[in-house]
């Protein structure tokens, strides 16, 4: 129809915010709270949603996704909790070291790739470490609608148990915490056994934990539709490589510490994205020509796509080899 042709901008809509609180929770994790700079209310969001935080680090723009962990019913703030990753690419270090109350930042509108199945007769949450954040919002949402839930939360030590005390105090019968240093382990098999039909399981944490929950549930006859997971992959550093973008008609260099998507953006290419973590499928790009090996790290393409060498997800995946030409 084209009533008013506009080119869609990549990414979700943006919101200008001011940092309203920086709350260190323990040695590794800090909570950041934001208010809208225009004084208006934030859009409502569904528990499990994330926002992409835009960080102006000198002349470098960093975009990192974080789960929204504030109460979805509270439209006065958005909050995220960030775990410091000393080995990472610097986004979390920037948040921890540079961001102060009063700073102006930009968030995207919420995007949900990890939503509750509202048909569930019961919700069972499995969190590992900083994977607790989406469950904070889910618990708040379910408490308002009298939802049936329980949480099993594995942390390294009591000192690093982000929100563990707060949650245990608020919901002593629903929250179960397991500390690695006390050799406590989530009794997964027992927990999967005997859940009523229509129970849904959600897991957020390290890759190993996610795989463990999926595999154990499958072995106990659980349908895959009843097991939900979210894992944000941070793009991994890797050897620099060169890419030709044939639609844009330019050749660009991808540096060691930036993703292919970031390199395209740095060179002024408006490439699509949402999650920047290999989960949403938005950045899927066709490969025109390739001589070398792909390092696929996304959760979006299936094994067949990966093997075909015809597609790549530039937000997390890389390439090692002589020639790579993309349809972008």
């Amino acid at each position, binding site marked *: *129809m*084209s*009533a*008013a*042709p*506009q080119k*869609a901008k990549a990414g*979700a*809509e943006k919101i200008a915010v001011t940092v309203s609180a920086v709350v260190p929770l323990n040695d590794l994790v800090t909570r950041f709270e934001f208010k809208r700079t225009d004084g208006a209310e934030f*859009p*409502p*969001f*569904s528990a*499990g*949603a994330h926002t992409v935080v835009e960080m102006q680090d000198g002349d470098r723009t960093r975009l990192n996704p974080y789960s929204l962990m504030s109460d*979805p019913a509270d439209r006065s703030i958005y909050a995220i909790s960030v775990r410091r990753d000393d080995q990472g690419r610097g986004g979390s270090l920037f948040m921890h070291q540079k961001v102060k109350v009063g700073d102006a930042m930009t968030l995207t*509108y*919420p*995007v*949900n790739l990890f*939503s509750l*199945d*509202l*048909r569930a007769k019961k919700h069972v949450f499995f969190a590992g470490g900083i994977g607790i954040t989406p469950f904070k919002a889910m618990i708040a949402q379910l408490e*308002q*609608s009298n939802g049936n839930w329980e949480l099993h939360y594995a942390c390294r030590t009591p000192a690093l148990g982000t929100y563990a005390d707060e949650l245990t105090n608020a919901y002593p019968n629903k929250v179960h915490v397991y500390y690695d240093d006390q050799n406590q382990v989530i009794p997964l098999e027992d927990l999967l056994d005997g859940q009523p039909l229509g129970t849904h399981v959600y897991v957020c944490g390290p890759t190993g934990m996610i795989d463990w929950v999926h595999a154990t549930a499958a072995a106990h006859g659980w349908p895959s*539709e009843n097991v939900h997971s979210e894992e944000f992959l941070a793009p991994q550093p890797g050897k620099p490589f060169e890419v030709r973008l044939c639609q844009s008609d330019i050749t660009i260099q991808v540096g060691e510490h930036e993703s292919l998507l970031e390199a395209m953006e740095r060179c002024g290419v408006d490439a699509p994205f*949402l999650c920047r973590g290999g989960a*949403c*499928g*938005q950045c899927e790009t066709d490969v025109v020509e390739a001589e070398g090996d792909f390092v696929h790290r996304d959760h979006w393409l299936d094994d067949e796509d990966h093997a075909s060498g015809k597609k790549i997800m530039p937000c997390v995946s890389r390439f090692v080899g002589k020639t790579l030409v993309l349809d972008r």
Partner: protein
Amino acid sequence: MTIQFNNETFRDDYSFRNSDWAIKRFPFPFHEDSYMYSVNMEQHRGGPEGSVYEKRFDVDEHYLSEMQDRAIVLAEDPLRCQSLPHMTLAGWDTLELIMVSKSEDYPELFELHRDGNRWRWVNKPMKIDHTFTFLDETTLPCGPLEYITRQTQGDFAVLDQRDEMLWMDAGMVTTQADWSLDFDIGMNFFEWHAPVPLAHEMGIFKRALKFLLNVQQGAPARRLNWTMTVNPLLDTSPENYHKWGIQKTTLTPENIGAKQHLRVELQTFFRLPRSNALLFPIRCYLIAFQDIVTVPKWGRRLHRVVRDLPEELATYKGFIANRPVMLDYLSQYDDGLPTSPGVWPDLETEPPLAK
């Protein structure tokens, strides 16, 4: 501008009429002289002033009469509005989206006053002034989806999003192009589209689904669809087909200009924030052939589209039997001159009919 609401019917004596204003702003669906299914989606962020694309939920001169027609349909068949139990939150999302949009876009017609969860909604054309508690069903006379869509033109499908799929788990459907909510409720995107010819094979639904799964909060989208209806009958439902089907056989060369209507659906897509569901409003606009041909460009183009439409599509859209009599009529308004690209009437720049 203030809208003069018509007092008209979409049944029995069919007193429905489009004013000159409504004709000029009609969402003519053909941007070129031929038509085939495509993934024709674009952003829904306004459009030219006065056009049906300008506001999030267009209100026009047919508002009150359409709402009366909906009330008649629901009284006869309450199954036209259904919501599976897990869709109540999406119903509140829908209510919030429409109340906020309409009160911002048409402040002279609608008001929303919010004090925490205590909401007062004023719908001046329908003479409603109601205070209720947001998210508390007991404070509304019916479910939130039914409540707000009894006050909003167009049909509504509410899609739950799970497992990389959309599920039609709620809706209000009284102005549909021959499909049944009662039959389709609970189906997924591919299932409810099953009867559509050619588009599956063309890969259209696969790509369309991918697009829809990624429609985000604050970034709605839209597309147009169209079909043909004899008499300005809004409720062309399968439920009542045994009653209205016979009307399709009443066309004559004398009455076709007044009786045959082009039926256009402005379909929009909104991500709902609290439930993460997708709202799919389907707004139906009707126009008589005799009114379309007052715009020379549209008359020329409609003739060419109807003439060249693949047989499968004409059959699916239910006018294959009437196509010859339509073409006899429309060919009078096609002088063979070229048409300008795009959907707009271009009254100032397109030549008058040279016949």
